[in-house]
């Protein structure tokens, strides 16, 4: 059992909480983990990514080699495409379709859709909208985690436990909101995979 995952987004969108929760479930399942993050300069509205690898055997490289990623999780559609060189042939792209536009030469909606349509294995959903309906747009990243959960091969309870641990200190209401967002995302992926 080995999974290589690339998490992608724009600085400030909260990809690291997704990584933390998967990391929690991985460690609780007794598996090996390596998770490389980007700190520093690129946090200010620039593109950010995190490489997350887990396996039942020791892991060597902190970085995922080309063409080896099983999953790209992106909280922003253009950022999903940036990491395609790392995706394996059978890999899945799980992406939020809501663009984050802070540059002038951002592609058009049609261009983006055309590229995403080319991907054979993908789950694409407007996670911002889903999160808003669930109660707060800030739970967007938990919608994305939920949508990824069927592909992770990790027990759902462990992921839910991770959500409780990460958001616990913000109170029960925040935990419930994030669990709700997670489950909606999960259901969407189950129905569309």
């Amino acid at each position, binding site marked *: 059992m080995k999974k290589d995952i690339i998490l992608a987004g724009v600085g400030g969108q909260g990809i690291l909480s997704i990584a933390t929760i998967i990391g929690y479930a991985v460690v609780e399942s007794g598996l090996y983990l390596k998770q490389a993050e980007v700190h520093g300069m690129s946090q200010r509205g*620039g593109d950010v990514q995190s490489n997350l690898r887990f396996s039942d055997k020791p892991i060597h490289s902190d970085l995922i080699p080309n063409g080896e990623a099983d999953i790209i999780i992106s909280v922003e559609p253009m950022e999903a495409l940036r990491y395609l060189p790392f995706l394996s042939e059978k890999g899945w792209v799980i992406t939020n379709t809501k663009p984050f536009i802070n540059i002038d030469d951002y592609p058009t909606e049609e261009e983006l859709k055309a590229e995403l349509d080319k991907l054979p294995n993908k789950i694409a959903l407007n996670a911002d909208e889903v999160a808003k309906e669930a109660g707060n747009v800030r739970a967007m990243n938990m919608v994305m985690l939920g949508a990824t959960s069927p592909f992770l091969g990790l027990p759902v309870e462990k992921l839910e436990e991770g959500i409780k641990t990460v958001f616990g200190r913000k109170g029960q209401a925040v935990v419930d909101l994030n669990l709700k967002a997670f489950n909606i995302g999960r259901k969407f992926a189950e129905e569309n995979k």
Partner: protein
Amino acid sequence: MEKLLLLGDEAFAQGALDAGLSGAFGYPGTPSTEIIEHIQKSDLAKERHIHCEWSANEKTSMEEGLGMSYAGKRTIVTMKHVGLNVAADPYMNSALTGANGGIIVAVGDDPSMHSSQNEQDSRFYAKFAMLPAMEPSDQQEAYDIPKYAFKLSEKYKLPVLFRIPTRLCHSRSGVTRTEVLPENELSLPKDPNQFMLLPAIARKRYQHLLEIQKDLEKESEESPFNKYIDGKNKSLGIISCGISYNYLMENYQESKCEYPILKISQYPIPRKLIEKMADECDEILVLEEGMPIVEEMLKGYLGRGLVVKGRLDGTLPRAGELNANLVAKALQLTFKDGKNIPEIVAPRPPALCVGCPHRDTYLAINEVLKPFGQGHVFGDIGCYTLGFQPPFNSINTCIDMGASITLAVGAATAGLFPAFGVIGDSTFGHSGMTGLADAVDKKSNVVIFILDNSTTAMTGMQDNVLLGKLEQVCMGIGVEKEHIRVITPLKNKHDENVKIIEEEMNYNGVSVIIPRRECIHLFAKKKAMKK
């Protein structure tokens, strides 16, 4: 044994704490910042009252660390690679004074320049100073090294350099914790002359340093962090330093590597193990993160001896960080190519946050300088360096911390008018004050902006030593009180700010303008903490 999930930086910090650390000294800098931040959050550190406040810069950190070592306690000094340039004077001389309590100088190197001005390799400094150095290949070694390195440091009474690259600093993995050692007792150096580098003493100390080089080599040969792994196929031997060992192993998950491998994590390089490889293998491939330092040593200037492959002959790229694919290519192994990035994907460079005080400062400066055209603003390092980018295009230089003021002084001396320097509050505390003293002494016609956002924002909100003291310090340095102007960088103050900048520009002498408004993230953080 307890298992922890830690970044490479945190693993080193935890390892140092568990090895009986008494104090950490450092100045923030990506990728090293999380070392001290981990200690600041640690319960063990609180319990033991371990010093872990930020210092003014890397030189002061290094000297403070050396002072703690002088007093017999174990200490670490942390910085990013370019910080070692700032600390180079005490670091180089510490090779002669040596240490008393164990001291590790931990330096975060940034190959590929993810967040830096260059990609210099700190191992050169260790070689230059003739001091031992260690570099971990993974998080567990980052945790294990401090205990070993403190002992080594105390055995030879020398500082040990710990070098760790960005990828390892910022990658998390499981680490097994070992026993927690007590701190050292306070004790003075046995030899009262040890730290007195007068020429007569320094010559003796240098002779001593030269004499123990062979012992340090022997330590490397016998180190548990260096190992020789046999392989059947002797057509090639692989020397793999630090993190490159992971990239090598990534390519041999299913099968064992057929070539002999020498894994190096401790320097000076282990001579006997290298001799063994040179004797039994036809060619040597050197994998090292950063610059080709081991490769160059083995190859020699004329390259007429051993056949050595690596970054110098194009087997690996000359610049930038390594990865598993580059190593596979060097070994002619097959690897997957992956798809291309679609053409529509646009670069998304970092930018000043919406609402950032620096934005309003730059808009005001731009308006004042409109009649003069480009080329009048000397920048520095921090979030505000992003003012180089559109839509601001406000600054023209970024070299090293503190260089804004001094470049402005130099250019003004050459006759450039106006000459503006733009420097952050933390950077001013790091190395701006001496430059400002020069400006005052030379009566330079410059306007220096000290951007006071109340924090060291670029590296993630650390305190800085001059917080709340900027005006006093500038006055103390000799800037005239009426030419120290505080402005509020806000849209609705724009016209007022432009006027003040114009006034100071037209004053023939040193003016300091302090645009003062909190970084919006600090503001948000404080608000959240109040709740």
